[in-house]
């Protein structure tokens, strides 16, 4: 089902030519940045909170196996059934089996990037279970047949006119391009699906070991509906979502929503553990009768033992991509499946291997804008560099690059050779530029595709200072 990935460079090239997408990005990028900055400033000591977040999540990683077992026990005691999925295929199978067991025909789903990671929808559809995305952004993308563009705002690149067209094509609503009206139409359409659905599928932002409960954070309330209306609920979560104590939820929430959208808290925060069982004699019909929780590994345990371990701290806030100038230029569809921006550049190779999309960790200027906003202080550029180092170690880099580095290093360890080469280069550039500017050089096609080099004076600083007798 999974096709071989196109390189990041090829996808990015296509994206750079997409004027509509780039226009939309130019418009929205500043909003995320200022919202986050304001929310962090207003909190007060946000830096200490980031340190706290890092520690909470470090504990998650350190004690992961034990915490997961504790979570399992507590969730089962509350009436849920917990399944362990070693990989994407296992998770898909468990989900389909659970849905079939309950004769499900229709599933409503709240946004789950983990679900995207394992390509859950395709598996459900193949099993004859209609799956409706209920997050407005995901719903739009489902209509458009597109993948998420952003982990928290999946359809941020879609303009109102485009959405109106999609709705019209699918007979949703009464037409028109008014945003409020479009939202109302989607809501009406989705409400019927919620009521008719046999199962609800949600992701989880956090799994709390001490209470055996999953927390989901949404702004539209669709997560809560998906979690509570259908009689069967399936939660799919990466094992990295584990957190030791529910008492840490306030700090994590503050970090998550302030970093993501600049909100003090999201509109809805839903914490639910097991299922309604025989013990509930309150006469109410509400809540799922069955709750299946699928804990997905899919490379995470291996990551925990690797140099990419710190990436498991990620709370999927999206701040790194919101602040990434490369992401702003090329958009979310240039990266691998499900994850994008700096976090995707680390997470995708960490989960799928460094040769999956080998140029992914290289597509960064190392400007560090992501690292300074990451709420759990993941050293994203440093991890990208470690991935590069791993490629070098495994000798998968192009020959020309390795040769250039070896040659350069050889020269740099021999000052006289270096000084000679530097002087020759300075003179060469001077001559190539003819006194004004260099417009083209065969050995730097990338640079000269879009930039000149203003003609250097033709002598090195070392030569100039020598003349002044230093």
């Amino acid at each position, binding site marked *: 089902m999974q096709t071989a990935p196109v390189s990041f460079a090829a996808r990015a090239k296509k994206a750079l030519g997409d004027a509509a997408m780039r226009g939309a990005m130019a418009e929205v990028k500043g909003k995320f940045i200022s919202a986050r900055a304001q929310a962090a400033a207003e909190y007060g000591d946000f830096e200490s909170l980031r340190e706290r977040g890092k520690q909470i999540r470090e504990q998650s990683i350190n004690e992961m196996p034990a915490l997961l077992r504790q979570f399992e026990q507590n969730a089962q005691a509350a009436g849920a059934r917990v399944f362990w999925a070693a990989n994407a295929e296992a998770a898909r199978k468990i989900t389909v089996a659970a849905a079939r067991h309950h004769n499900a025909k229709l599933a409503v789903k709240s946004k789950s990037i983990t679900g995207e990671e394992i390509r859950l929808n395709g598996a459900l559809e193949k099993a004859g279970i209609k799956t409706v995305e209920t997050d407005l952004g995901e719903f739009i993308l489902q209509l458009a047949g597109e993948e998420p563009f952003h982990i928290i705002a999946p359809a941020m690149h879609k303009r109102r006119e485009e959405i109106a067209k999609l709705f019209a094509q699918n007979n949703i609503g009464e037409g028109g391009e008014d945003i409020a009206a479009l939202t109302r139409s989607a809501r009406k359409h989705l409400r019927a699906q919620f009521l008719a659905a046999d199962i609800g599928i949600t992701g989880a932002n956090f799994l709390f070991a001490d209470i055996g409960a999953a927390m989901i954070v949404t702004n539209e309330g669709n997560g809560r509906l998906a979690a509570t209306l259908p009689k069967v609920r399936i939660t799919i979560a990466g094992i990295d979502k584990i957190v030791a104590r529910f008492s840490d939820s306030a700090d994590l929430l503050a970090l998550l929503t302030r970093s993501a959208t600049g909100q003090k808290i999201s509109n809805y925060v839903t914490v639910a553990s097991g299922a309604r069982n025989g013990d509930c004699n309150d006469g109410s019909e509400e809540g799922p009768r069955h709750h299946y929780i699928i804990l997905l590994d899919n490379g995470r345990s291996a990551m925990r033992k690797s140099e990419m371990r710190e990436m498991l701290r990620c709370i999927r806030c999206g701040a790194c991509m919101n602040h990434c100038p490369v992401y702003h230029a090329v958009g979310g569809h240039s990266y691998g499946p499900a994850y994008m921006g700096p976090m995707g550049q680390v997470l995708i190779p960490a989960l799928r291997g460094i040769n999956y999309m080998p140029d992914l960790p*290289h597509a960064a200027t190392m400007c*560090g804008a992501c690292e300074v906003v990451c709420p759990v202080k993941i050293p994203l550029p440093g991890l990208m560099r470690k991935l590069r*180092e791993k490629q*070098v170690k495994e000798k998968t880099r192009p020959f020309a690059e390795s040769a250039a580095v070896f040659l350069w290093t050889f020269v740099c360890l021999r*000052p006289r050779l*270096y000084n000679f080469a530097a002087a020759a280069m300075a003179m060469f550039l001077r001559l190539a530029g003819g006194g004004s*500017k260099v417009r083209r050089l065969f050995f730097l096609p990338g640079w000269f595709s*879009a930039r000149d080099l203003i003609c250097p004076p033709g002598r090195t600083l070392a030569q100039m200072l020598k003349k002044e007798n230093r």
Partner: protein
Amino acid sequence: MPAGLFATCLVNIARPQIGLAAAKTLDLAGADWVFPRGQTCCGQPAYNAGFRAQAAAAAAHCARVFADCEKVVVPSGSCCGFLRKHAPGLADVAGDSVTVLAAKCMELSEFLLEKEFVPPPRKTPLAAAFHDGCAGLRELGIKKGPRKLLAQAGVTVSDIPECEVCCGFGGAFAEKFGGISAALADAKCENILAAKTNTVLAGDAGCILHIEGRLSRLRKPVQVLHWAQALFDSGGETNG
């Protein structure tokens, strides 16, 4: 022990004018300084490409060259950032000398401010807009220093809009991903044009060559200088 001026490759080969201006500030600050002849590259390009052993070898060489210097003055945020923040992580290969070197490295403005250098006022007025290079800003925390020196020299300094956003250079990134890098440079150029300035100042030869290279290709007559050059009427190249 004297301070050592570390030219860095891009300054040495492509923009020695920056080095001359830096040298002039050191003279005016009354610093005892030398220009060690054995200096080459700090190792940053190899480091960012993932070639750890080669980066370590270059950094260790750098440490040897500056062994007799009390401080190492670097007119570049990214090379200084590499030597100070990253090179110590290579000590397992490069040996402890890189850790010693890291503690000695100072970006030019840091060194000048520590020396309590006050630049003489310029004779001709200059209004310029500043771009903060990523490594200097986020790895070394350099922000106010150059602005303070410029103000003392009588330069009217403003910030270009989004002055802390990367210009898209990123070393080999500009070559490997030329198109993406140019898109970032275009965003930077737009902000520069919005600032309505004739002169952009930065603290890194990489940013400078990149921004001015893109402006030149777009035929925009805006000059891009290292802030040290702007301290002097002559750009720091002569004694005038």
